[in-house]
């Protein structure tokens, strides 16, 4: 009976889902840190920094995710014993950083130049003006597009299946091979779990957006 099979395997699917969430969080944190640095370098850096950041950004946007995963796992494991989870978090995290850098760069550019001028006019240094005036406004603007990126990455964690990370997709695959079939039902169950994770993530990020909203200030 298929429902019995699914029910019995639910703990494995849940375990896979937990791994999916862990990988998504890890790669998004890497992406946020590196992406902010890249976006800031592209917006405010001197030309070598700007060029370097742009080069990294183009590189990681141009290479397919699966190729990055193989490069970071099989490539690095040749000289360093990297876990498949760490390799996946790095490969997908740096790729996400490239995309996130463009979100932040756009958000920084959307802050009117008068804000920087007013900050500098009161005596703030450039660095202070960026951190205290421009960035807080830019990051708030970035929450919308960042939500899209986060959801997209949550789904792309399934690619880590190819280098052996035991996440939701690979658990589903194990269940299928252990039960000689029920392909549609098992992958269907995995799909439902991705849906639930996406809905939960959307809800969380929209709540954060509402919390950080500035009274009277229309969000675009």
């Amino acid at each position, binding site marked *: 009976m298929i429902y019995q099979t699914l029910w019995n395997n639910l703990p494995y699917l849940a375990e896979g889902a937990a791994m999916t969430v862990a990988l998504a969080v890890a790669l998004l944190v890497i992406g946020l840190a590196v992406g902010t640095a890249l976006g800031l370098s592209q917006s405010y850096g001197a030309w070598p920094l700007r060029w370097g950041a742009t080069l990294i950004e183009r590189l990681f946007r141009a290479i397919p995710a699966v190729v990055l995963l193989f490069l970071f796992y099989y490539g690095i494991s040749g000289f360093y014993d990297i876990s498949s989870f760490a390799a996946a978090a790095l490969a997908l995290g740096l790729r996400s950083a490239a995309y996130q850098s463009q979100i932040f760069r756009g958000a920084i550019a959307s802050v*009117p130049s*008068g*804000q920087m*001028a*007013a*900050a*500098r*006019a*009161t*005596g*703030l*240094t450039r660095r*202070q003006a960026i951190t*205290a*005036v421009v960035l*807080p*406004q830019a990051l*708030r603007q970035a929450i919308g597009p960042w939500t899209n990126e986060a959801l997209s990455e949550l789904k792309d964690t399934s690619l880590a299946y190819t280098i052996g990370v035991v996440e939701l997709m690979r658990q589903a695959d194990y269940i299928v091979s252990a039960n000689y079939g029920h392909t549609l039902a098992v992958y269907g169950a995995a799909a439902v779990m991705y849906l639930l994770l996406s809905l939960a993530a959307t809800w969380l990020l929209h709540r954060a957006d509402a919390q950080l909203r*500035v*009274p*009277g*200030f*229309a969000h675009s």
Partner: protein
Amino acid sequence: MSDQPLMRVSGLHKRFGDKTVVRDVSFTLARGEVKGIIGPSGAGKSTLIRCLNGLEPIEAGQVWLEDTELTARGADLDTLRSRIGFVFQDFNLFTHLTVRRNVTLALIKVKKLSRHDADHIAERELARVGMADKLEAYPAELSGGQQQRVSIARALAMEPELMLFDEPTSALDPQSVGSVLRVMRQLVAEGMTMIIVSHEMAFIEAVADDVLFMVDGAIVEEGSAQQIFHQPQQDATARFIDGIAAALIGDGGDEPASR
């Protein structure tokens, strides 16, 4: 009071691309003086005033604040700017901060005051511009006139030695203009040194000790308000003043006579 001018500008040139917007501008500003800058749109008034605190880099010339050259290579612009208050045409309040935090930001970051002391100053300065009841409001919740008064308080909180006003009422509805001009009049009465770029001719005539009339980036005439508005020495000045008078009476139709 010393004889040394508070601000000295000599031979200032500013270009955008190959268009010269400020040409060979020189003047001095005494402590306690109120200087008005008037002229047709596009005369370079706003660009000039933005050069005076280094918001715009310049091609040639010098700006001195007492003994310090603001335009010198390696000048400590941040410190110099904290001595010069600047009020923008479109206010530029920090949209993500409350009225209170707009005023305290530079006090805490630049003057390194404690939050407590900064709050105290903010409350005092906001009361001075009639905004004491809006401490926790955000800029987007305020009218233009209220925002401009907060921005004046933000500048005053730094206890500047002079205030620069870049068309402070141009973006305001007629009702709000009065409230902002009242605050500025009060500053004049308190002896604040000010440079005001404005199209409010009656206001400039009433408060300015000295008026610069600019056309095409250059000072065409400098003199007392009495001279500029009633005995202009230059034809261009006379045409400009007559044009405004005519437009006010409705004599000249929709077209200002000077252009």
